[in-house]
């Protein structure tokens, strides 16, 4: 073999050796998938922003044991097929050890099935399904709002409004919305309230007829189990229809910005209440100060809202789980860690987030807030109440 040929062979061998050698992935690969461009993106985007903010703040402090979190973000656009293929991409190509976020609950089932097959755990925020409730299905965890538990929590907190009479529940015609109304009804009837309800199609043109239908039932209190777009339409329509009493928002991703907009459109911010699992970013606690500092340091463009806090808490759960899992954490090890996790959120939720082998949702804490139009923030009206699973009947 002549010299030139030998030289080329050695060069080729070196190049192939470099290409074929596995890169050493010292950082933790974490996946985040949610709706960032679909019909509910205004609800889910703040969750991602809060989580991303937490990761940035964590990495700025050196990451976990000197290793950074590499966040792979994907947008499912509320499309189920896209969500499943992105799940595979995150697990098989990006080799993430866990997927966080997810979007609407109707997508969770098939995505969880795929994740079980791939043996990668997922922790959802905002939306939750019964997969995470005891007896929990493997690889499915949640820090979100399960409709049935949210409905019962709202029912338990309703007497704090100081008004008696009939509660009219309103929702969009979805499985989750109907479930929330059912459990809300059972909870308020137990404490002596009457009940009636108005459900309307998800895609409705004008909310005025539905608001008038609700007002015609002579409610003392109206509860809305839906998201931002519906609240922005229903609140002004309800006030125009003659209902001036307490309106209670079940906080499925409704931001303070949206409440302010609805109050403006309604001509008054009076008598608007929110029940939420998460503290608003105006509370005077160190954990909120950390979020504010991170938002400033990393130039968060959006105004901080309660929904960002929810994303931040999801980041705390991820941090605690990966730290406990330790160096060399794999997806299956992370899953085992998540099944024995206790996260102190520093007051951002009413108590710790606790996952066990059998219960991947744990106890949840809820609080009643009143919208203060003058200061444009949510003021707490009650203490935190604790809910351990679903109390009334079955799912």
């Amino acid at each position, binding site marked *: 073999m002549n010299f030139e040929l030998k030289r080329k062979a050695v060069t080729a061998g070196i190049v192939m050796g470099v290409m074929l050698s596995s890169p050493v992935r010292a950082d933790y690969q974490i996946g985040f998938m949610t709706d*960032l*461009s*679909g*019909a509910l*993106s*205004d609800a889910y*985007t703040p969750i991602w922003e809060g989580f991303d903010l937490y990761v940035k703040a964590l990495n700025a402090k050196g990451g976990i044991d000197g290793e950074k979190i590499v966040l792979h973000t994907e947008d499912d656009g509320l499309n189920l097929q896209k969500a499943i293929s992105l799940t595979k991409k995150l697990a098989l190509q990006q080799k993430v050890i866990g997927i966080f976020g997810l979007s609407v609950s109707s997508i969770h089932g098939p995505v969880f099935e795929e994740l079980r097959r791939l043996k990668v755990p997922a922790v959802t925020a905002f939306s939750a399904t019964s997969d995470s409730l005891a007896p929990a299905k493997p690889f499915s965890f949640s820090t979100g709002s399960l409709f049935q538990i949210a409905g019962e929590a709202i029912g338990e907190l309703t007497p704090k409004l100081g008004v008696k009479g009939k509660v009219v529940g309103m929702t969009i*015609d979805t499985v989750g919305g109907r479930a929330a109304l059912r459990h809300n009804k059972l909870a308020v009837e137990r404490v002596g309230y009457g009940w009636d309800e*108005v*459900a*309307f*199609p*998800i*895609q*409705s*043109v*004008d*909310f*005025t*007829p*539905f608001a*008038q*239908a609700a*007002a*015609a039932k002579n409610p003392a209190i109206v509860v809305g189990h839906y998201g*931002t*777009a519906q609240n*922005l*339409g229903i609140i*002004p*329509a309800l006030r*125009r*229809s*003659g*209902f*001036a009493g307490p309106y209670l928002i079940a906080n499925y991703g409704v931001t303070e910005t*949206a409440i302010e*907009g*609805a109050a*403006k*459109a*309604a*001509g008054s911010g009076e008598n608007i209440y929110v029940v939420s699992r998460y503290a608003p970013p105006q509370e005077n606690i160190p954990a909120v100060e950390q979020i504010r500092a991170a938002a400033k340091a990393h130039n968060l463009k959006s105004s901080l809202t309660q929904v960002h806090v929810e994303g931040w808490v999801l980041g705390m759960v991820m941090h605690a789980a990966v730290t406990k899992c330790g160096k060399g954490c794999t997806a299956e090890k992370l899953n085992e860690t998540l099944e024995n996790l206790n996260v102190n959120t520093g007051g951002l939720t009413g108590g710790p987030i606790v996952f066990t082998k059998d219960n991947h949702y744990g106890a949840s804490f809820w609080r009643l807030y009143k919208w203060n139009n003058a200061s444009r923030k949510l003021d707490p009206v009650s203490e935190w109440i604790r809910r351990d699973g679903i109390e009334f009947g079955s799912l």
Partner: protein
Amino acid sequence: MMQSILTIVVLTSIYAILAGGIVVLYRGTRVLNLAHGELAILLGYLFATAGMQVTGSILGGMAVVMVFSAIFGAGIYWLLMRHLIAQPFYVAILATIGIAILAKASIVLLWGGRAVNIELGANTVLYPYSTGGWFSYLDAITIATAVIFFILLYYALTSTRLGIQFRAVAENPLLASQRGVNVNTIMMVAWIVALFAASIAGVLYGSRSVLSLQAVVIGIGGLTAALVGGLDSLRGAIAGALLVATVEYATVRLIDPILSQAIPFVLLLTVMMWRPWGIFGTREEIQRV
């Protein structure tokens, strides 16, 4: 009772403006625009942001939106629709579906799909109902806008040179062309007028409800009204809007709110079976796809 009647009239006004835009476009170009709802909401977003926030006034905002409507309308015709004139009729309809997708994608790209109220400051009491609610200045503005819109449209079509040319093209484009009417200009104007109508409807809708990705369904209400009344009849647009609004409202209050989006389609199917060209539409040969 008064509350119900006035609510129906307000809803009729918005549907009528939407349907009027669809009818003008169909009469002038024989294109059924399936992107009308998406364009209405997109223009509503433009009013709320580029319009109101930049100019700081409602009139300034409307002026900005009218400019965008003219640009979009002219652009859609010259860049796309003009090239589809010789194609089978369904090609243009499919093209409008593409426009709808682009409009929705623009809403996501530019505003992240977030829900937005348009605040005109007119939601205050004009006439209080005995039930405790009220008929607001915004409700009155909505009705007045629809009335003015149709009066101006009627005047334009019957008393202006452009309007007469438009009617000539609508009647027989080949003959109109041979008589010296610039058919391309007329068709472009039809698109611009349709988008003017969409922008007005989008702004009024966003003021009393909310602009969001889900709000594009308002286009279905306008389309249903136009089909029920007759795709080439402005009188039919008003009648169709009244029928659809009444049926929708009555369904919510008397039957079940869940059926409020489905029952208008039952009305549509009933009218289609009885008079496929709509209540006031011109009897035409039906082309099967």
